[in-house]
């Protein structure tokens, strides 16, 4: 979930032309690639934050909608009750289920619209001050 959310964030808000390489081990990361959501990577868990939150900080993204989504990603990934995010368990199950039936590129293709939709929903919710219909 955190990984898929980071990939979506990078494509949408940091580098639309980003190409993703999938590896099983940090040792396999190509020299010209920027690893994320992996042990030892900078774009990863730090100080209690999940990788998505770290990425928002590193990219200097202050968009309140993204930080609102970050609460959900944080709870889906870490489940440490730092935030109240009732959406988290549902999204976590959806992402884990998709990862069981899809390979890595298909996983990113499938979760992209999921996060686009989440972004639009949370954007309208923040504007309205309540859940949109």
């Amino acid at each position, binding site marked *: 979930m955190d990984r898929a959310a980071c990939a979506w964030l990078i494509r949408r808000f940091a580098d639309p032309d980003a190409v993703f390489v999938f590896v099983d081990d940090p040792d396999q990361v190509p020299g010209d690639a920027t690893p994320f959501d992996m*042990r*030892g990577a900078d774009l*990863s*868990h*730090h*100080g*209690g934050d999940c990788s998505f939150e770290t990425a928002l900080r590193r990219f200097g993204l202050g968009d309140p909608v993204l930080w609102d989504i970050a609460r959900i990603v944080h709870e889906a990934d870490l*489940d*440490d009750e730092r935030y109240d995010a009732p959406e988290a368990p549902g999204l976590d199950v959806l992402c884990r289920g998709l990862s069981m039936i899809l390979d890595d590129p298909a996983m990113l293709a499938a979760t992209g619209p999921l996060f686009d939709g989440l972004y639009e929903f949370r954007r309208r919710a923040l504007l309205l001050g309540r859940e949109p219909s």
Partner: protein
Amino acid sequence: MAGSIEWLLLAYRMPREPSTPRITVWRKLTRLGVAKLGDGLVALPADARSQERLEWIADEVIEAAGEASLWRSRLTSAAAERALVERMAGAIAADYRGLITAAGAAGASIPVRAQTVARLRRELRRISQRDYFPPPERDEARRAVESLTSRAAVR
């Protein structure tokens, strides 16, 4: 005969001060339901999700100026493995029994408060998440909480 379960072992050491990172790490390990094998040594049955979670915790330990390594291993004795599994199941069973008692107390008050039911449901979910060897008490706890749910709904 050797054990049949593959285990993840996290060996870690953290500075005594500051204590906050140490407490945070211990809280996360407790939430995962690890078996404490010794000072700075905990175990979980191996699976991909537990491995990823323990890896993140290992990194957190290292980030807090500690040392951590994650291992995969098997017990050399089936009897020792049984004892460990029974210990973990026993600890979880005690958690379920606490929940059953709490559900009984909540059911005695009329009407059953929806807020209390929500809290007990959350607690049930938490316990289930760290339950690797479900004891018989699990089904009893589920029934106890579900029966409250239906009663809170009708009132």
